[in-house]
């Protein structure tokens, strides 16, 4: 039943899920313009097998890739 309730919100091709992520997770802001996604996350852990890096703020800029995707963090 819950899914039907979201039908009104999808009338504009929009979903509340990204907002849920905002509330629960560490996603601070998001932006999508000119096919470029920009995310700002807070309190992020980058985990590799050997290493763990914790960071207060991460900005992710992501472009669409067809073998030419680029992904930068600062």
């Amino acid at each position, binding site marked *: 039943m819950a899914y039907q309730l979201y039908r009104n*919100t999808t*009338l*504009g091709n*929009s979903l509340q899920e*990204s*907002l849920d992520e905002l509330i629960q997770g560490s996603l601070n*802001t998001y932006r*999508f313009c000119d096919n470029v996604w920009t995310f700002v996350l807070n309190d992020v852990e980058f985990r590799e097998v050997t290493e763990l890096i914790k960071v207060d703020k991460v900005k992710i800029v992501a472009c669409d890739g067809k073998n030419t995707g680029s992904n930068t963090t600062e």
Partner: protein
Amino acid sequence: MASAPRPERDLGLLAGCLPPYPPPPTTVGLLSMEQQETYLELYLDQCAAQDDLAPPRSPLFNPVVPYDMYILNASNPDTAFNSNPEVKETSGDFSSVDLSFLPDEVTQENKDQPVISSRHETEESSESQSPQSRLPSPSEQDIGLGLNSSSLSNSHSQLHPGDTDSVRPSPEKPNSDSLSLAPITPMTPMTPVSECCGIVPQLQNIVSTVNLACKLDLKKIALHAKNAEYNPKRFAAVIMRIREPRTTALIFSSGKMVCTGAKSEEQSRLAARKYARVVQKLGFPARFLDFKIQNMVGSCDVRFPIRLEGLVLTHQQFSSYEPELFPGLIYRMVKPRIVLLIFVSGKVVLTGAKERSEIYEAFENIYPILKGFKKA
């Protein structure tokens, strides 16, 4: 009941007539003048985004402090009483305007007074006219009694026929003698708490539209506002979201905007105002014209299983039930014009309403029918 007139704002009646429920944080009952002023300012600041209105007609108006206002205050004491420093810092630089939480600062103080007082007066005059026409009807007064005796959360939900703008709690109107019963009586005989064992449909989604009345540069909005998406190849509007009230807005280059996801009429209006303020802060001369609720969705549970086959047989001119297509029965009620999705489990979804009362009325109508088709 009215306090002394307040020359600054010409809103004399408001100060003494704040609703006792929910109780303000500091006192129960009448607030001190300072507290009233603070609440007043908070509410008025919220409405600071421009409403385009007719010139003020009468000095009288009814107190219009929205119920949701207090909830917001209770949950965000910091933001409610302090202006938002972050917004002030970036006010000259639109590169990262974060308006996702409740900023109660006044954006254009000069515009506040005439805009807000005329807004109140317009709402009040539309209200004062409609109760007069409704008084002769005894059924509505009975309903008023029924509503008064019901819980305040229910009475908050009733609407004036002439008032599509906002819902006000019933205790707000004690001053008028002729309206000794709650003037918030709806046109049709119905009470949320009634033969239905107190089952009240809960609103799940409100869709509303508003006209910002200026052409918008969507790319600029998408680049400078937080939490915005703009993919013109897929959809010709900016999709923006705010956290409080949790809503999504579709903003079009014509200046028109759709606001979805709110759980109450006031929240929908508040959210729309916040989006308008975001647009305004990005440099566009946004106004707030023709706010209208287009659709309301509610849901509830009758708590017993239903024989949908039987229902579709006896109500075939209203029902459509194709279990292979969709597991719910689609009931198109004629009066009020509401579509109900009825499921075997007893859950009911009601949609298509322009007013809260239509949802309640539709459920009142369907409940006895559903009881007749209780399983086993």
